C-alpha cells in the first residue's frame, strides 16, 4: 500500500527514515513536488511529503544569511528579502512550469537539492556557492548537520556542497542556511540584435572579460527571441544577445555607456530598463521559451566560449536552443529520438562538458540516462558516497542513476 508521510519536524523526518530503514521501504522525497519530472522515475513504495517543514527560522539582514526549513517556498523567502533590499543572488530558477506545475511553488530545499542557478551564475556563483549549512536526515535514520551560517568555513568535509545537486538521494534536507546579498539598486540590459551564435559568444566573452561587472550574458536566436513576452525582444525580428549590468545608479550609468562603446562593433545596440530587464531575465532563467512546447528538453553545461559552436551544431540537427551563462549553459529542445539524444551528449562532451535530459518521456530517459554517464572511477566514488549516506537505498531510488 502506498502511503504519503508528512512529517512536521526534523525529528519526525529522522524517525520516519529510521522506520523506513527497518522496513526496507524506499521513499520518494518531495518538497512541493514541482520538479518531480526532473530525474528518472522514482520507484518507491511510499512518498515523503516535506511540505510541513516550511517557514523562515531566522533572518538577519546585516549577517547576510537566512535560515529556513527546507520546504519554505522560494517566493516566500524572496518576499521577505525584498523588505530589506536583499535577494538570493544565485537567482533560483522556477522550473516547475516546465513540468506543468504552477509557478512560484518551488521550495528552497528543491532548489538546493538540484543546485539550480539562474543567469547570475556567471558573476556570483551557483546555489552550492550560497548554501552555507544544512541539517539533513540521512538514509541511515540519523539527523546530522554540516557547514554553518558563516561564509568562511573549513571545519571538516564540506558535506553541504555534496547535498547541492544530489536530488534527495543522499539525505533529506530539513533546514538550510543560505547566503543572501544586497539587491541591486538599478539594472540595465544591453541588447545586440542580429548576431550569429558564434559572434554572440565573442561579444559575451568581451563583455565578461571587461571590468564592467557583467552579471548575466545570454543569446536567443531569432525564433526563440520571437517568443519573448518582452516586446523589445520579440519585436527585434532577429537574434538577441543580452548583457546585464547591475549596481548603484551612478555606476550602472557609467558601465552602461562603456559597455555600449565596447559592443558597438558587434551590431545594433538597444537597451532594456528595470522592469523589462527583470521580465527578460526571468524568461532566460526559467527556460520559459520551452515551457509550453512539451518537447524533449536538454540542459548542457559546457566551456562558455564553445557555446556558440555547440548551439550551431545542434541547430544542424534540427534542435533549437539558446545560450545563458555567457555561452556556458545551453537550453535545447529536440524531438523524442534516441539517436538525437546520443548526438546531444557527444556534442556536450566534445565541448568539455555534459548534458542533462531535463524533460523527456520515461523511455528516452531510461535509454540514455537523465544525467550524463560518468567514467567508471568517478561513478564508483559517487556510488560509495551514496552507500555511506543511504546504505540500503531508501532515498529516491533510481532518480539520478537507474538501479541505485
Amino acid at each position, binding site marked *: 500500500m502506498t502511503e504519503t508521510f508528512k512529517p512536521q519536524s526534523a525529528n519526525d523526518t529522522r*524517525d*520516519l527514515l*529510521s522506520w523506513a*530503514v*527497518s522496513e526496507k521501504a524506499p521513499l520518494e522525497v518531495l518538497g512541493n513536488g514541482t520538479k518531480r519530472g526532473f530525474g528518472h522515475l522514482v520507484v518507491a513504495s511510499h512518498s515523503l*511529503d516535506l511540505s510541513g517543514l516550511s517557514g523562515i527560522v531566522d533572518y*538577519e*539582514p546585516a*549577517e*547576510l544569511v537566512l535560515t529556513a526549513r527546507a520546504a519554505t517556498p522560494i517566493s516566500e523567502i524572496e518576499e521577505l528579502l525584498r523588505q*530589506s533590499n536583499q535577494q538570493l543572488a544565485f537567482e533560483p530558477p522556477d522550473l516547475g512550469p516546465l513540468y506543468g506545475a504552477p509557478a512560484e511553488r518551488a521550495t528552497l530545499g528543491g532548489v538546493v537539492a538540484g*543546485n539550480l542557478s539562474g543567469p547570475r551564475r*556567471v558573476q556570483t556563483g*551557483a546555489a*552550492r*556557492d550560497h548554501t552555507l549549512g544544512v541539517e539533513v536526515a540521512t538514509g541511515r*535514520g540519523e*539527523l*546530522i*548537520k*554540516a557547514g554553518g*551560517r*558563516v*561564509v*568562511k*568555513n*573549513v*571545519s*571538516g*568535509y*564540506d558535506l553541504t*556542497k*555534496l547535498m547541492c*545537486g*544530489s536530488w534527495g538521494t543522499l539525505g533529506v534536507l530539513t533546514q538550510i542556511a543560505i547566503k543572501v546579498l*544586497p539587491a541591486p539598486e538599478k539594472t540595465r540590459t544591453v541588447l545586440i540584435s542580429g548576431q550569429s551564435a558564434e559572434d554572440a559568444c565573442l561579444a559575451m*566573452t568581451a563583455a*565578461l*572579460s*571587461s571590468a564592467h561587472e557583467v552579471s548575466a550574458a545570454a543569446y536567443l536566436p531569432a525564433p526563440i527571441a520571437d517568443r519573448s513576452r518582452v516586446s523589445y525582444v520579440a519585436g527585434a525580428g532577429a537574434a538577441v544577445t543580452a548583457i546585464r549590468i547591475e*549596481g548603484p545608479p551612478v555606476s550602472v*550609468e557609467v558601465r552602461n555607456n562603456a559597455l555600449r562603446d565596447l559592443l558597438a562593433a558587434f551590431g545594433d545596440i538597444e537597451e532594456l530598463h528595470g522592469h523589462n530587464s527583470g521580465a527578460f531575465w526571468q524568461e532566460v532563467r526559467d527556460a520559459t521559451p520551452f515551457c509550453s512546447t512539451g518537447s524533449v528538453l536538454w540542459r548542457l*553545461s*559546457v*566551456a562558455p*566560449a564553445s557555446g556558440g559552436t555547440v548551439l550551431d551544431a545542434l541547430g544542424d540537427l534540427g534542435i533549437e536552443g539558446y545560450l545563458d*551563462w555567457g555561452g*556556458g549553459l545551453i537550453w535545447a529542445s529536440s524531438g523524442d529520438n534516441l539517436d538525437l539524444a546520443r548526438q546531444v551528449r557527444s556534442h556536450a562532451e566534445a*565541448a*568539455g*562538458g555534459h548534458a542533462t535530459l531535463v524533460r523527456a518521456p520515461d523511455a528516452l530517459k531510461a535509454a540514455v540516462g537523465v*544525467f*550524463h554517464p*560518468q*567514467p567508471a*572511477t568517478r561513478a564508483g*566514488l559517487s556510488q*560509495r*558516497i*551514496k552507500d555511506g549516506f543511504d546504505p540500503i537505498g531508501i532515498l529516491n531510488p533510481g532518480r539520478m542513476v537507474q538501479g541505485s
Partner: protein
Amino acid sequence: MTITMPKPDQAVLEGRDAFLAALSGCIPADNLIADSVGLKAYECDALSAYRTLPLAVVLPENTDQVADVVRLCHANQVKVVPRGSGTGLSGGALPLEDGVILGLGKFNRILEIDYANRCVTVQPGVTNLAISQAVSAAGFYYAPDPSSQIACSIGGNVAENSGGVHCLKYGVTTNNLLGLEIVLMNGDVVRLGGKHMDSDGYDLLGILTGSEGLLGVITEVTVRILPKPATVGAQLLGFGDLQSAGDCVARIIAAGIIPAGLEMMDKPAVHATEDYCKAGYPLDVEALLICELDGPSAEVDELSDRVEAIARDCGATTIRRATSEDERQRFWLGRKSAFPAVGKISPDYYCIDGTIPRGRLSEVLTRMGELSKQHGLGVVNVFHAGDGNLHPLIMYDAGKPRDLETTEALAADILRLCVEVGGVLSGEHGIGVEKRDLMGVMFTEDDMKQQQRIKCAFDPDGLLNPGKVFPLLHRCAELGHMHVHHGKLPFPDLPRF
C-alpha cells in the same frame, strides 16, 4: 606537543629499507629523500610547534609518478601525507613517522591560460600569486589571496579551501575552482569538473575542496580568473571603542554595500604594526577599520561617501580616504605586516582562525579579553571583519615552561567561544592536527561519522593523511554498520494522505 598521533606501524618502520628500494623504482633517485638531514626540512609545516621526521620524502614530477608512488604505498600499507609549499597553519602536512611525505613542489608549471573561458589550468605546486601574475598583463587576476600567497601553492589552497581578504565579495577557493585531477590512494586518476560551471552528478569538486589531503592527491587545478576592477579605493576608519567599529561593519553591509575587503585591527595590533612599519595609523583608537571598495571610479567615490557617512554616524574619530595608489598601499602595509610586527614584540605568537557571525564581534572581543587575562597571555587581534573571520594572535614565549600549553588552552577556549556564538572552528586555515580534538565542540559523533564515511569512499584503508581533522579514527567496516530498530511507525499521529 599535546596532540596524540596514530601509533606508528612497526612493520612499516622495520621494513623501511626494502620499501625505500621499491620507492626508488617509482621515481628518479634525486626525487627521493631518505637521509635525516634532508628529512629535517620536511619535519613540519608553518605550524612549527609540531614536528615529526617522516619515513621518507618523495618529490614526483608527473601524475604517473604520483600514481606509482601511492600504488606502492597502498600495496605496502604505508601512509601518505601530501604537501604543497608547507605554509599551512594547522599542521595538515605534519609528517607521520611511518608515512611518506608526497611533496608536490616539482609540479610547478602553468599548463594553460584560456582567456576566452576565463580560466587557468596549473599544476598544484604553482603558487597562488604566480597565477595572478601570469594573467595580470591581460587585465585578469585570481581572486582568493591568502596572506601567504607569495609562497603557498594552489594545490594547498584547494586542500585547505583558502580565503584571504577579498572573500566577502569574491568568495573563497571553492567558489573559484572549476576543475581538478586527483589521484586516489589506490592509484586511480580521476578528473573532476573542467571549464564548465556545473557538476554532472555529486559535487565531488566541492567535497575535495577543504578536504585537507585526506581524500586524494591533487595533481592538476583549473581556476576561474576575473577581470581586474577598474579602480580600487580604500578608507581608514578609526573608532574610540570596539562596539562602534563592530556596529559600523554591520551597518555598511546592511546598507547594501559589499566592500572588496573590510579588515579590523584592535588597539594592540595598531600599535604593534605602527611601531614596526610606520603605516601612519592613528594611535588614539581602540579599533581601526580598513574598507576597500572596487569598481568604476564613480561607484567607488559614491560608495566611499556612503561608508564615510555611516562611519561618522557610528562615531568614527578618524576618517581618511586614500588619495593615491601609494596611500592605499600604505593603509594595507600595516595590516599585512601585522604578523611580523607581533613577532617583534613577542618571542613567539600563535595564530588562530575561528569565524563568527559579524554581529557578535564586540561581544566576542570583550570575552576574548577576559580569557586572555584569565590565562595570563596577551592577545592581539587582526581579522577579516567583513566575513567574521578572526585571527587572534596569542603572544607567548616557547622558552618558558608551560607557556605553549597555556597558549593551546587559551586558543581552545577562544575557538569554543566562536562555536558557542554560532561560528566555526576554522575559517581558512583548516582543522589539521591543531584543531582536531576540538571537532567535537562543533559536531556530534553522528556528524563526524558521516564525514568519515566520505573518507571511506575515497580511501577505505585510511592511508591518506590519517590523524588529521578527525579526533577518533573509526574503521570503515565499523562506520558501515547500521543499527536497525525494528518496529512500528514511530509516530502514529503523523499526518498522512
